[in-house]
């Protein structure tokens, strides 16, 4: 089935074979490999994307259900520059193996867009769906906290 959608502001399309996920389609059909697949069951957040304005796990979206939708992936976040969240995470040395990083970046960018000045507790709460298997949470949270209050 042909699926037409908007990804990072561009009209894109691909053919699905069946019930594969949006994550699979982004990576394998559209070659946008920023979104990572780890658990494929909604637990780790490494596949986080924004679908029609909602932060979701792309591994739990059936690709055909994204037809006509707008998808924002980590590749589209900052445009030609790095997004402030990406810069902040580089600054605080928050990237170890980097597998969780795109998911954290998308989730944190969305959080900062929705909430003007989240407290450290809010940030922890809102990022509960993102897991870092290198357990580098300290630097990740410090990086995001540096952005609070900046417009």
């Amino acid at each position, binding site marked *: 089935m042909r699926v037409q959608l908007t990804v990072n502001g561009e009209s894109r399309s691909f053919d699905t074979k069946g019930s594969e996920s949006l994550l699979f389609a982004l990576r394998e059909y559209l070659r946008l490999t920023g979104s990572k697949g780890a658990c494929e069951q909604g637990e780790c957040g490494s596949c986080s994307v924004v679908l029609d304005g909602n*932060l979701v796990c792309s591994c739990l979206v059936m690709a055909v259900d994204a037809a006509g939708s707008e998808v924002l992936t980590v590749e589209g976040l900052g445009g030609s520059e790095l997004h402030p969240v990406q810069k902040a995470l580089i600054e605080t040395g928050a990237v170890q193996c980097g597998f969780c990083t795109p998911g954290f970046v998308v989730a944190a960018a969305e959080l900062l867009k929705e909430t003007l000045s989240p407290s450290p507790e809010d940030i922890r709460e809102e990022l509960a769906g993102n897991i870092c298997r290198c357990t580098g949470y300290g630097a990740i949270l410090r990086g995001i906290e540096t952005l609070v209050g900046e417009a």
Partner: protein
Amino acid sequence: MEVIHPTDLDEALAALAAHPEAVLLAGGTDLMVEVNFDQIRPEKVILLRRLAELQDVSRQRIGAGVTFRRLESGDHQALAQLARTIGSPQIRAAGTLGGNIGTASPAGDALPFLAGLDAEIELSSKDGTRRVRWDRFFLGVKQTALRPGELITAVILPTDLPDCQEFAKIGQRSAMVISIASACVFRWRDGRTRVAMGSVGPTPIRARQAEEMMSAESNPGPAALQEFARLVSEEVRPISDHRGTADYRRHASGVLARRLLERCLAK
């Protein structure tokens, strides 16, 4: 795989009548896990996510397609409380009330809320609509009274809503947990009290003896609260699994229900 993308409810019901075996897909947070792990291979899928008719919310009627993210800031305190405990922001943005009901997991966090309020599930098919009270709808672990050709369109709440409603659950950590035990306590100013427990039986459990006892107490003291907790613990029917033992669940149920009741009494 055939995909049906209805533009309105009538179209969805017509498609479902023609293909009663089709799989209904809402937020996908339960279904896609099964698909990803090859536990199911849907041949036909009907997409519900964008059906406007399932998105309406009023005080008495909540559309099946409403996400937990929206319910987090709704009118009903216990429903908002439970919505905030579902998975993560990513899961709440996709997961729907109707999907929680459709899955009918013993750990479905919306279920005790429905049970405690004696909510009805509104089911629609091409031939019409019927309402089924929660206890005739949830029949067992992942078993419901949904018939082929029907879909869940809404939840109907009673007009006589309680003056206080509280939800809480126990899990292994504070976020992203499947309930080991969950509870909803409702109390009216005239003393009427209801308690519904989740994750401690195949379907939600109303602790009717505890309710009856507490409804007769206008100003319960420590002994009455103790007795209330004891009755709740007695009435649940938990099993042991990898998340907790039956004994722990039994004990936790009483403690949880009593704490929620205390919150209501303190108001």
